[in-house]
């Protein structure tokens, strides 16, 4: 098999493995195909995902199923106002060894896993939320003078309830920027609900198999970065980014009217890397404008900060992004 042929096979294998994961997760999670795909894309892109949705929509189930499918270490943290950073990161305790000697030993927290589910992350205090920052961005944890690398892959999946705002601490912009995607989990349709009922109320519960190992996942993650992006496609992604900034001349009116701050360059990075994964999942060897558009909404929606008017009018960032996509041409040259 030639080197080139190997690339084509790799692409095919990538596509196949992704489909395997999707199908396996699909056994447990009814519907939410785009959410599952979004989570897989984010994971392969090396990012973290913020899931937003009302309780009971299967967010936790999705993450758990995914970790089972991928054979990864999974930990779940329920964020509450009294949750302390040490509860997440871990703490040093005085322990007695087998030979009877006492020594200080670092007891790792739940952050030391491959997939971390931060449930209702906005219920924790900012202090606790910020404890997640280093882990999410640097993939490491510093306790005292000791910095410990987290095991790759490290993937944080945070959830938040958009309805119960009382007693919550909205995530700061800096932390939001650490999430590659913000996915909205919508209420399932009637057919999906029927399927959920059928699956969860019978004697035998579906079981998921591990379809991918950790090494394969890391291989896929690295392979995704090699997908070529043509300059005009990258240009399209960047023009979309510019259009989220109200002060930019190319920004559409809706941006100028309702947006306070546009997305950071991290948004464009997120779009491009997600688009690469997306292209591979689609079995392609290049990123297309459609891939850019596909990942733009999830990548930009939590990075665009509305102004007062936008908040007052109840404007959704998704609408703004949609308008930006409509108004931004794929190519500017004739």
């Amino acid at each position: 098999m030639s080197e080139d042929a190997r690339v084509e096979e790799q692409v095919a294998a990538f596509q196949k493995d992704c489909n395997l994961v999707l199908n396996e997760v699909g056994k447990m999670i009814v519907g939410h195909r785009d959410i599952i795909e979004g989570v897989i894309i984010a994971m392969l892109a090396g990012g973290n995902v913020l899931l937003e949705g009302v309780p009971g929509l299967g967010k936790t189930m999705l993450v758990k199923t995914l970790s089972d499918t991928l054979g990864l270490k999974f930990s779940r943290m329920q964020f509450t106002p009294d949750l302390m950073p040490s509860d997440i990161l871990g703490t040093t305790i005085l322990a007695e060894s087998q030979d009877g000697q006492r020594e200080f030993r670092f007891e790792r927290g739940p952050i030391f896993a491959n997939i971390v589910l931060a449930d209702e992350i906005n219920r924790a205090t900012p202090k606790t939320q910020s404890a997640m920052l280093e882990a999410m961005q640097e993939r490491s944890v510093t306790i005292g003078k000791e910095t410990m690398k987290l095991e790759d892959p490290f993937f944080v999946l945070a959830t938040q309830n958009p309805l119960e705002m009382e007693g919550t601490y909205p995530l700061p912009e800096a932390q939001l920027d650490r999430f590659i995607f913000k996915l909205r989990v919508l209420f399932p349709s009637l057919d999906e609900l029927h399927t959920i009922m059928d699956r969860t109320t019978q004697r035998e519960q579906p079981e998921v198999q591990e379809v991918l190992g950790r090494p394969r996942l890391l291989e896929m993650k690295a392979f995704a970065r090699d997908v070529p992006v043509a300059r005009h496609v990258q240009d399209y992604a960047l023009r979309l980014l510019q259009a989220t900034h109200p002060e930019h001349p190319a920004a559409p009116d809706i941006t100028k009217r309702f947006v306070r701050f546009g997305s950071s360059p991290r948004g464009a990075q997120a779009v491009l890397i997600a688009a690469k994964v997306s292209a591979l999942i689609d079995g392609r060897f290049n990123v297309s404008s459609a891939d850019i558009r596909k990942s733009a909404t999830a990548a930009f929606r939590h990075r665009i900060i509305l102004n007062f008017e936008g908040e007052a009018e109840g404007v959704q960032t998704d609408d703004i992004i949609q308008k930006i996509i409509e108004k931004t041409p794929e190519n500017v040259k004739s």
Partner: protein
Amino acid sequence: MDNNNSIGQIERLVERLARRVRLQRVVNALTTALTLQILMIALLVALATPGWIDVASRNMAMLATFAIPLITALVAWFRKVDKISLAQVLDRTHDLHDRLSTALFLADKDRNDFEEAQIRDASNFIKSVDVGLAAPWRRPAEWVAFLVAACILLGVGVLKMPDHRRPLAADIVIQHDKILDDATLAMERERLEALKQTLVEAGLEDSKELIEALDVLLDRAENREISEKEFLEELERIEKKFLDKDDGGRKDLAEKLKEAAEELEKAMGKDLNQVPEAKALVDALKEKDYQKAADAMDALAKKLADPNLSSKDLERLAKIMEKFSDLIDPNDPKLQKLIEENQALADKLSKLFAQEKLSDSEKKRLNDVKKKVADLNRKKKANEGTLVSRQLKELQRKTKEVAGGARKAAEEKKQKGKKPEDPNAAKKPDFQQEAGKKAQDAARDLEKEGKEQQKSEARGAAQKQLDELREAMQRSGVKRGESKDGESQDEEKGKQMKDFLDKAKGKKPEEGKEGKFAQLGEGEESKDGKTGTDAKKGDERKTDKKGKGEGKGDSEGLGEGSRDLEDETKLDAKRVDEKLEGKKGDGPTRSEVIQSASEEGFATTEYKEVFVDYESVVEEVMEKENVPKGYRFYIKRYFQLIRPQE
């Protein structure tokens, strides 16, 4: 498959698309350009058909319009096309997810395995690409405009454009009210002819221009091109330009010479009778006729130069000329007398003032008298500088020299008679000849003055005509005010004239017309403030004085019609009525001639003769009598109306 080959295929594909896009661009641009060109051609045709531009210019401009589609097509074809963009179009239209455009992008760079794989992947789709789908043939956006423009061109070619070369509408002619009726105009033209002759004869400068200006003015009045105000202004302008010239007091000069001549006749009547040439000179000066005076002076000069003239005659002539010279006073005698009287008074008062015998009021009077003397002296000085004064002085000097020469010649002749022939006689000055020459000089001066006088008279005649023209116009204006319908008034006048001429020929006027004529006569009189009653009174008084059956008062032509006469005029003062009787001459009086003419009719006498007779009488009366100006006008108009037709 070699990736370079794949890239080549993609590039060829894009090139095909580029050609198609260029072609579409050319078609679109050509449609727009042709629309513009057609519109321009239509405009040129529209301009050339009626001649706004000539055919050669039109053809040149039409040729130039062909550059528009040519340039547009070239620009459209050669305008840069971005290959990547075209590849993107192919990707979009064939749902290739930027495969071709990415492959084209990667073509020019060092590629890794993944990128090579991408190009291979893209090449798999080349065969499925249909360029036509990416750039479907579209109808040019301007095709409707193109059709409309073509229709316009067709319309312009078929329809006849308005031609500006057709004769333009006539200029607006402002026609004013008629300010002079036809009869007045005819009269004025006739008089203008006469004036022309007078002016030419007088040798007046600008006479031709003056006549022309008046002629033009009358033409304009006749054509109603001029308003009453403009007419008067133009008259004033003509007057200022041609006639407003100072004659230097020539009238005064003539008057003074006349006075001198009369004085001379009184003083030396007998002597004058013995020298007919001097008598003729005096008579001419009395008549203020310089030409005659010059001729007489010339004759006198010849006489003076005559060697056979006796010393007695010479002496007589010298006496006459000396006297004449003395009588010619360049200074105003009245002014001189006034100065002397005032000076005497001033001296007397000054004397009393020196003796301090003057009251305050007398002192004031003294000042006033002094001032008056000073004023009179100033006036005298001013008079001395005038033309009259200079001329008189010159004439005085020359007559004195003539007299002196004559006297010397007379003495010389006397001496000659007593003494033997002097051998040096030839060397001595010939006083007689000298006097003759001086007389000739004086004759030349008089002749020159005569010419000037003639000019002045001609100018006066022209001035008179202008005055009369002005008055005629003003009178016509009064009538216009009475009746706006000027034409019907003219008609009326024509009828009146016809009636009058019929009457003059002895025919009876048509019934009713006489009354009308009479009524109009009354009306006209009343306009001048003279009522019909006043007129009748005048006639009655005249009848009383004349006697001789003229008291009927209703005879034809008096304008009274059949109306009864009013009572006699009652005078407040006591008076004695006297019946005046004129002396009968040899022939019939003028009134008798006129009377008899009216009684006997015109059967035997030519109307022209009668008219001339009437006119001359009237003119004589107008010259002698102080006839008011307004009446003069009507009299002249009347005679103008009854003038025999040539």
